[in-house]
């Protein structure tokens, strides 16, 4: 919620993004080639993720869960910032989404903690 309060400061910036409607040409969106590159990275990470499943090949030990989470976050981040354009778009969009995301993660982590999920 505090996000909306501060979004005040983003307004001048928002005004600059005036022509960010999506049906204008020539704005900052990346080329198709860039998208493909991102997709390749995503595919590679996915391959690595799946690779962890075959423990016989390589035992990740205690590093398994942290690495999996890390890879997940990277993928999540790449899709959100590139494919969903958060990187190029007005910050307000990202803030609305992050507010929900952060709240969800926070609230549910606490809930699972109360259920002693981690022990």
């Amino acid at each position: 919620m505090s996000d909306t309060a501060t979004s005040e400061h983003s307004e001048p910036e928002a005004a600059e993004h005036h022509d960010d409607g999506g049906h204008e040409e020539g704005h900052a969106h990346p080329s198709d080639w860039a998208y493909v590159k991102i997709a390749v990275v995503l595919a590679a990470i996915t391959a690595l993720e799946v690779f962890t499943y075959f423990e016989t090949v390589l035992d990740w030990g205690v590093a398994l869960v942290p690495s999996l989470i890390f890879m997940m976050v990277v993928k999540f981040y790449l899709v959100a910032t590139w494919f969903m354009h958060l990187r190029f778009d007005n910050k307000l969009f990202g803030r609305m989404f992050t507010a929900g995301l952060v709240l969800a993660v926070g609230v549910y982590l606490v809930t699972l903690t109360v259920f002693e999920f981690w022990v």
Partner: protein
Amino acid sequence: MAIVEKTPLELGPGDSVRYAERPLGVFTRPQEGRGWRDWLSTVDHKRIGILYGASAMFFFLVGGVEALLIRLQLAAPEGSVLSADVYNQVYTMHGVTMVFLFIMPLAAAFSNYFIPLQIGARDVAFPRLNALSFWIWLSGAIFLNTSWIVGGGGADCGWFCYSTNSGVAFSPSHGVDFYAIGLQILGIASLVSSVNLIVTCLNMRAPGMTLMRMPVLTWMLLITQFLLLFALPVITVALFLLMFDRLFDAQFFNPDAGADPLLWQHLFWIFGHPEVYIIILPAFGVVSEVIPTFSRKPLFGYEFMVFSGIAIGFMGWGVWAHHMFVSGMGPISVAAFSLSTMFIAVPTGVKVLNWLATMWGGKLRFTVAMKFAVATVAMFTIGGLSGVTHSVAPADTQQTDTYYIVAHFHYVIFGGGVLGLFAGIYFWWPKIWGHFLNERLGNWSFWIMLVGFNLTFGPMHILGLQGMSRRIDTYARGYGFEFWNMAATVGSLLIAVSVVIFIWNVVKSKRDAPHLPPPGPDPWDARSLEWSIPSPVPTHNFDTVPQVHGRDEWWHAKYAENDEGQVVRVATAEEAAQTGEATGVHLPSPSFWPLAVAVGLPLIGYGLIFNLWLALIGALLTIASLYSWALEPVDDPDAAHDHHEDDKNEDDQTGGHDS
């Protein structure tokens, strides 16, 4: 939803030519008119606000009658007005009705009516979605109450419907099914409306209306929308799990299969606690408008008011388990939630003292609206302080599930929420209807309500501390509960009297209105933009969208401060106000599809409970209506431009929207 549709009207920057491109849609749209049928297709935020308000007041009576039944049953020991079974249904439906069908929609009425007006907009961002929210809400409300007739009775599990008592084995009638599905339908309505209003607040402010210039009512309503936005999905999850358990034999709450009943409690209260701030913040907003107006002072500490509201909204997410102090979740969790709960008193206290500081050195004029507002502050403080006493977790082990809690939450909900919204009703009545509510009757109603309220809920503190459990259909003689229960029942009858006076006031004021001078645009010498336009508000709201230069824009259009800090008038309200006579304002066309979509949902509900074929029909109806909606032209390009003149004239003649 209507995603596939494309806009017919494109306006390039600075380009005043309309593209008369034929819209994508294949259905024509109805036109805005004045008959009763037009209420069914209206997309005007003001009319939708009125619809919300009127239906909410209706359900206030329903919930109130349920409350009176409770009180009659408990007036004396061994009461026999209701059987235990009916009592359980009545108190459950009382809680559900009051929370979901009365106070939330009443707050939604304020959001719908006043957010656009206070930010200088013509309507909300998505007018048809707005209509959809209302109709879905209404269909959910009706659906929920039909369980009395077709469901074998209302839900009988308490408004938070704890598992496992909500399972089929323990509540075999369909009441709980109606609860689970009904609340989902209501949730869709509120979710859609919260998205709509958030976008409205962020995106449709008049030029110059920065966030920190928004009136505090709008601010509080905006925060409320965020709370709804994030809280509703959580209860939706809970309700789905419950529904799957009951209707499709899932195992979410079956302890024999290893399920944990506390899961429901967490999900419910993660929603439920933000919910109580959803109830109170609109009232805080109203009070923050009324007190400055009748103190002839600006709100003290605007920034602090806004940020404390945000803080309350935010902190409200970390305290839910204070409803579960005795559930056995473990001492560390108890301590943590106890601590997080307490500190909500800080931002709330900031609000209370800022209201007092606004009154400090002011010129307080005690109209009925002002009386309600001041009473709100006082009564809420009592409720808030009893809240603090049960935020101390060990102490709460003596208090929880007793009438002490019932006293707490009626003080905050009724003393805070309901009295606050009543202040708003008296304050904005002339703006909405073009005539005042009668002050004399208003005073009677106010005092009787205040006395009745305290007589009803004050004694409940004592009863609770004497050990009277809540949700009991009778109590035995000899525990010392007799006297105060009788007092509470008498008090509730007084509240009923005050409500009757209020209803009479509504009727009488309307009847007397033609013989009284009209209130004019700004009867209270108020401060925000809705007072800069005629009363009642013309269909198009603003002739020209105002340019905003600061907080309390409208006040500054009337007054300035000279070098000595004295207030000098620069214009009368009549001079500064808009005339409402603009023509040719393009407004969104009405549509019947929101109503049609909404009708499908309860059919799905009945179908899930009784016969899946019916659900299929409901689903098809919903989908077909959604598609029709999408294929409907966004606007009727021929209709939009010339019929507003008649509107205005009619307004003048009838003095209201109610013809």
